[in-house]
């Protein structure tokens, strides 16, 4: 097996020591500088620098509790930084109006819940909130964007159904439709595939991939499945204990060393026979035991 991909290119640092701040560049509409995030007295993300490539799909991976959700919340202005800043189009996001941010950046938290009896179209219509005012609550554009979002997610026929009467996959598509109706260039999604079976995971990721391609959206998401992450990501960000461990293409980041350091797991990296992206095969007790026998 050719393992030349194992070498991380020089533009990305793998060491866990603090890296020099990322210089602002036009390809990063969203970036974090010296960002420290946490809740109350606990600090979760420390002095983190990260630029999100515009018009690409970036996937955050890391062990449970490593701070990737916190990082995503920080990027979405849901969490106020303890220090450092998040910049959206070069402006400090904490100084921007909530609605201004919401027109550029949409965020879908992990497993959101809708009130009982809410219909799909009611939910998707709420995606237009940042564009509405007391007197303008339903413009022609609102109507068009909602119809388009339902169309893209193939939810048009289910528009009048109550959310709680839908399957997990349909429900998740309804939430995605709401964020799409928000009509933002940047989408932040926290584990959009949780609770979905494999075929629905692939279906949803295909949908997001298509969106990214046809609408040049910038997508940042957290995924748990490393192999799907490698396949769908243009860029991977491996997060370890609140720090960026490595960034780069899946080939650059997904190495046996990364998986060992970030997930505390021994594994083999092979090439996906279909997509040629890296695949992580974990070495567990079952295998080591058999080798010893």
């Amino acid at each position, binding site marked *: 097996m050719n393992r030349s991909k194992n070498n991380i290119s020089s533009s990305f640092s793998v060491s866990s020591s603090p890296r020099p701040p990322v210089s602002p560049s036009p390809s990063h509409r969203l970036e974090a500088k010296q960002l420290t995030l946490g809740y109350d007295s606990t600090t979760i993300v420390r002095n983190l620098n990260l630029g999100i490539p515009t018009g690409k799909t970036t996937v955050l991976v890391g062990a449970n509790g490593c701070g990737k959700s916190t990082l995503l919340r920080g990027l979405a202005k849901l969490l106020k930084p303890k220090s450092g800043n998040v910049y959206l189009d070069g402006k400090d996001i904490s100084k921007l109006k909530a609605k201004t941010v919401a027109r550029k950046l949409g965020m879908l938290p992990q497993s959101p819940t809708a009130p009982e009896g809410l219909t799909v179209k009611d939910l998707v219509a709420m995606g237009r909130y940042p564009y509405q005012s007391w*007197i303008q609550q339903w413009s022609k554009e609102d*109507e068009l964007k909602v119809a388009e979002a339902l169309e893209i997610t193939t939810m048009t026929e289910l528009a009048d159904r109550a959310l709680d009467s839908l399957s997990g996959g349909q429900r998740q598509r309804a939430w995605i439709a709401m964020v799409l109706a928000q009509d933002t260039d940047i989408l932040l999604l926290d584990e959009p595939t949780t609770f979905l079976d494999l075929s629905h995971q692939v279906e949803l990721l295909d949908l997001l991939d298509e969106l990214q391609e046809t609408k040049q959206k910038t997508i940042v998401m957290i995924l748990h499945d490393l192999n799907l992450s490698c396949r769908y990501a243009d860029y991977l960000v491996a997060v370890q204990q609140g720090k960026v461990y490595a960034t780069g293409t899946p080939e650059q980041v997904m190495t046996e060393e990364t998986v060992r350091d970030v997930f505390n797991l021994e594994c083999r990296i092979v090439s996906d026979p279909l997509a040629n992206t890296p695949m992580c095969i974990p070495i567990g007790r079952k295998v080591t035991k058999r080798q010893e026998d």
Partner: protein
Amino acid sequence: MTKQWLIIRPKVLPISFHLDRRVPLVLLILTLVTLLAMIISVGYGEYPISPLDVVKTLLGLPTANGDYAFIINTLRLPRTITAFLVGVGLAIAGTITQGITRNPLAAPSIIGVNAGATLAAVTLLILLPNTPVSLLPFAAFGGALIVSLLIYLLAWQGGSSPVRLILVGIGFSLIAGALTDIMITFGEINTVSQALVWLAGSVYGRSWSQVFSLIPWIIIFSAIALLLTRELNTLNLGDEVARGLGSQVEWQRGLLLLTAVALAGSSVATAGAVGFVGLMSPHLGRQLVGASHEGLLPVSAMLGGMLVVIADLLGRVLFAPLELPCGIITAAIGAPYFVYLLISQRK
């Protein structure tokens, strides 16, 4: 796809709205039923007046009996109107409370309105038995406001959270309830019975002066509530999603809470603790027009008004000549409904 929406978007004005298509018809029917119940209610009593004569008198047309005008306009009409306004206030407050706590079983009492109003009113009645009854509503409103604010402030921990709000609210309501019980236990028997009648929730003997002191509260804060329906919609999706949509969650929730306290507080101050209206109305409303608050809020308000008007009528008809306070009737309907909700929620 917008089959179910009624879209109002005039070409000449820069305004646009959308409503569930069912809303206008439902509102019309509810208004007619409420008016009918009010006419029957005004006609009913020791001195019965036919519905036709009631309508004639209300419209200022001459009737066979000159006494009708006095009986209807001075004695009976203010009572029915008070019942309607109290119902509207409690129902909107209930809709808001369920929306911001994201809890379909919440009611205005959860934010301490009832407990605060009751404690203040009972304390006044028992500690200072000589105070005029007309001061009761003010004390009740003050009590409601203070307890609600205390709950909100104590639930604050770098931000308000619906769950903390509910827990602190329940705790405070119990404390206030215990203090009320102590007052009642140590109070003098005559004043205690007076307090108990007030506690049951009744619109008995309400006059125009009470209608006029309640009306501004209901009108102003209902209007504010209607303007905040979209905020209620987003908050109902949870804080994270609401923030992501650009809602200023804390500010909006505070404003909505204050609106609910003003509506429920003024209602409880006028008629005592008429229970379950704030819980039932939003539920019935959701079944009629769905969960989106643009349509739900007005429908729920009309339902609340209708419920209390009918409860007041039933209270007088059921065991005539004995009169039951409308609060007992709403509780008799509301308590089984609450149990039904609990059971259906488990599924």
